[in-house]
Structures are given as C-alpha cells and as structure tokens.
C-alpha cells in the first residue's frame, strides 16, 4: 500500500430505517459494524475506523474490543478510531488498550484523537468539559510518554500521579501507533497535531469546505513552523460522505428519505442544498470520483481519505452495496488519479511498517517525531 489510504469511518449510531420505522437492536448494529469492516477489507479498502460514544443511540463504547475482534477476522485492514476521546479516557488505559491491539493485529493499528463534545460524558468520567483543551494537552503529553519511555514518573492536574510506571505490553517493535488528531473547526487541534508532527484529520463532512481549507492550511503552516518538514509534507486526512448508485437519479431518490430524517442534518436544508454546501455527494460513482479528486484543490496532496457510508438507518445490505461500488469503481480510480502530479517529497500515508523502517533507518525519524533540539532551535 503506497500513496494514499482509503477507508471508512463509522459513528456507530442505532437509527431507525425511515422506510420501516424499525431500528436494529444493539446486537444487530454491532454485528453489522463487523460485517462492514470485513467487507471493507474484501473490496480493497485500507482502513476501518470506529467512533467512540458513551450514550445511546450509539453502540461503540469500547473501540479496541470491537477492533480486536475485527483484527482476528482480517488480514490487511488497518484498524483505527474516529475518534478516541483523549479527554475522558485515562491516557494510561488508552496506552494499554492500543498497545495490546497493536500486538494482536500485528501492527495494523492507528488511532485518531478527539475531545468529544457530549457534555455529560465529561462528568460521567470525572472530568469537566470546560477544561477540555488543557485536559487534552495534559492527557496527550502523558500518553506520548507512556508509549516512549520505559519508566514514567508523572504528575499533572487531571489524573492521579504515576511513580515508576511501566507500560505493558510495550508498543509493538518499540513503535507507538501513529496518532491522528481529528477536528471539525477547532484550531487547537490543528496546533497540537502540528506541534508533535502527528497527523491531522479534518472531519470535513457536514460542514462547508471553507472550514477544512482553513484548518488544513493552519496545520500545514504550523507543522512547518515546528520543524517537521515543509507544509506539504504534513500528514493530512479528510472525511467524505457519499451515497451511490450506478444511475445518479436512483441514488438521490433512494437516499432522500434517509437524508431527510438523518439525526445530524435531517429536517434542515434540502439534500440538494446540503450537497452543494458540504462534501456530501449523492450520485454516480463517477460523481464521487470527481468530487473527491477536487478535495485536493483546497487540502493539497494528502494521505488518507475516509468515507461515511453506514448511518442514518441505512440497511446493512445497502451499506455493503456502497462498499462494492467504492471498492470496484471508485477507489481504484482515486488511487491512480491522486498519484498524478503528486510531488515525490509528499509522504505516503504512515503505516506500522513505515514507522518501523523510519525508526531503523534513523534513531530520530524525521517528519514523524521531533527531537527536543529541533523544536528549540
């Protein structure tokens, strides 16, 4: 796998199908997520990412359990999150869970960190949403140390201190999972990603591209500022939101009731207005190809493209059809076309193997992890 990675990200919502009024059970939804992930590998996608939620109507409260189960039934698929809550999860538990998953999945693991914006989740986990930003900085600072230092002595404001803590298991091959930081339009997230030279994932969907343009530009500028390489070498991921049928009118007609009743945007603007204002593309595979290739115009050459395909009560069979169309007609063309004109110095999407190679080649892998000296110069 070189160049860009293509995958799907799921929210894990349990939503009634508006055509029948019937919602899947939690068990059915969880099994559907597994089926969708396995299908993603089968049709040639690179990544499956799950959201993390701690309230109904969402099911994925325990992402590494789900991803571990999927890892056992796949060979090639990279398992990721969208997002892992860096605020309300204990960074020690994140370090342990993803370290364990790395070993089980033989390195096919990365993760995307996010803050979470559901107010009550913070107090449920003993935190305060008003401190979300300093909490993110402190928790992530600790998480990085847990994955990189043998023995950690640590004290901070938001977690009980650690004395002589050693993570077990240690990260596979001594290489922590690659970290993305996910955001819609929060400049702080672009800043932390740039500061550490981590990946930046612009959620992109449900919002006008102007937000994405601004956030990616900021991230690239700050990435360069912190000395990780030139701006166009920063690691960028984008979301996408599609519904396809071979004939575009069929796609619109079939998707409209799901659009009109969707939890996020339902009962608001028309499908046509929303599709014009956000990356949502409802139409033929060719329309999805054209729209997606256009993302490069405002995000630059990038590393990872996710699609949202299983939400708003769409039946499993329909979602699997979408994956067939993505795998057969869309992704092969995108893989090829995104390579056209892509400068040689733009990095490929990071994988465990590439991180291990970088570590072996150089004790201080450039572009991935800054040294203290580089930051201070």
């Amino acid at each position: 796998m070189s160049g860009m990675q293509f995958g799907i990200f799921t929210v894990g919502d349990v939503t009634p199908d508006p055509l029948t009024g019937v919602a899947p059970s939690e068990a059915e939804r969880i099994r559907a997520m597994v089926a969708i992930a396995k299908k993603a590998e089968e049709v040639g996608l690179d990544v499956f990412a799950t959201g993390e939620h701690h309230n109904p109507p969402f099911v994925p409260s325990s992402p590494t359990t789900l991803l571990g189960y999927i890892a056992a039934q796949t060979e090639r698929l990279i398992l990721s999150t969208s997002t892992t809550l860096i605020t309300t999860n204990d960074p020690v538990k994140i370090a342990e869970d993803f370290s364990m998953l790395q070993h089980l999945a033989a390195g096919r693991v990365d993760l995307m960190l996010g803050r979470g914006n559901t107010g009550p989740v913070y107090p449920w986990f003993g935190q305060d949403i008003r401190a979300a930003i300093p909490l993110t900085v402190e928790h992530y600072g600790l998480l990085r140390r847990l994955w990189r230092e043998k023995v950690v002595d640590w004290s901070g404001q938001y977690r009980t201190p650690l004395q002589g803590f050693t993570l077990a298991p240690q990260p596979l091959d001594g290489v922590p999972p690659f970290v993305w930081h996910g955001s819609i339009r929060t400049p702080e997230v672009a800043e932390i990603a740039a500061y550490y030279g981590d990946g930046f994932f612009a959620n992109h969907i449900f919002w006008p591209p102007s937000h994405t343009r601004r956030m990616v530009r900021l991230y690239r500028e700050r990435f360069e500022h912190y000395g990780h390489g030139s701006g166009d070498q920063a690691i960028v991921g984008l979301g996408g939101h599609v519904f396809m049928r071979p004939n575009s009118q069929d796609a619109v007609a079939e998707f409209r009731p799901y659009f009109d009743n969707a939890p996020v945007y339902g009962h608001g603007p028309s499908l046509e207005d929303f599709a014009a204002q956000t990356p949502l593309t409802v139409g033929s595979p060719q329309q999805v190809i054209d729209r997606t290739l256009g993302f490069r115009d405002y995000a630059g050459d990038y590393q990872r493209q996710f699609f949202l395909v299983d939400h708003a009560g769409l039946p499993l069979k329909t979602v699997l059809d979408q994956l067939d169309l993505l795998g057969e007609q869309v992704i092969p063309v995108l893989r090829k076309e995104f390579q056209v004109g892509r400068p040689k110095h733009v990095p490929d999407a990071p994988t465990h193997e590439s991180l291990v190679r970088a570590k072996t080649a150089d004790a201080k892998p450039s572009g991935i992890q800054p040294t203290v000296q580089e930051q201070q110069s």
Partner: protein
Amino acid sequence: MTKLTVISGGLRQPSSTRLLADRITEAVEAELAKFNITASSSTIELRPLGRAIIDAMLIGFANAELESAFETVANADGLIAVTPAFNVSYSGLFKSFFDVLPQETLSDMPVLIAATGGTERHSLVLEHALRPMFSYLHAIVAPTGVYAATNDFGAQDGSVGLTERISKAANDFARLLHACGTRTRRDVFTEDLAEMERLLAAAPRPGEDGTVED
C-alpha cells in the same frame, strides 16, 4: 467613517419595525454628522433569512447568504437592533438570529436597542429582554432604547413623542459611538490558537526527563 449595521426583525411588508429602524438610522447618522463623522449603514431584514437561520440552528453552519449577514454584523462599528415584541419578549426569529451568530461577534460593540408593539404596555421589553441578551453577548448597550407602539405612528401627540425619543436615543448612541471609535474585530480563532501555543509550550516534552527511548 462609521459603519452601522441595522437588524430589523419585522415580518410584514410594510413593516413598522423596519420603519422604526430606518428612522433611528437616519437620526443616528444626523447625530454623528455633528461630530463630523460620516456613517454608512447596512440593513439586514431577518424575514428573508428565516429559513437559513433555522437551518443553521439545526445543522450548525450558516449558508452563504446568512454568512454574509454575519460578516456585515461583525464588521460594523455599531449595531441598531429592532424587533417586534411578541409574547412579552423579542420575536423568536430575532432571538434565533443572535443564537446562531458566531460567538463574540458582538463583543465590545455599541448597540442601540429598539422594539415595536401593539400598545405602550410592552415598552419594558427593552429592559427585561433585549438589554440582558445584548449584555450577555458582551455588547455595550446604549442606555437609551426606543420603543414604538402602534399609536406612536398615528396620533399626533404620540408621533411627536416618538420623534423626540428617537432623537434622544440617537444622540446618546452617537456619543457612545464617538467615544468607542472604530471597532477592532475580535479574532477568536487566533486567540484560541495563541492560548494553545502557550499551553503546549508549558507541557513537558517527551524524553525531557532524561528517560531513554529504546
């Protein structure tokens, strides 16, 4: 040059709320002229934006037309905000516009509040509804607002009274605008970024404790 933005929450055409907004705007421009300040004004009618305002509330972002209205507000040196009084308060549409307006847009902005209503009995809507909302939004609310009842537009006595009240409010607002001068627009994006930079700089860097990466 002082840039005035005028919000009119009137629903009908012609609208007495718009009529009041126009009269106040003219009066403020005349008062500013006494300070040798030229003013330009842009009026935003909320009715054509109604659907966009509700969409923005539901999906979290504004369409191009509403975004342009937000920009007009954000770039103003002063705001004249006029609503009809509905059910002892501002109208829902008027409130909704300010509910979806990006945070801190009105920070430090001089605002003249005004309302229309069927009878004089509702005049305190200025003090119990509009003023607290704009104070919450960190605006600098002019001490004198204008309330116009239907009678103010008809009866001779009333109409004289309204003109005087508009002049008084316009004079107070012009002095406030003059004192505040050209407004510097707040950039929350850059402020947040600067705060994050400070936080990260204070965070311990990996490996700094002398422990070794293996």
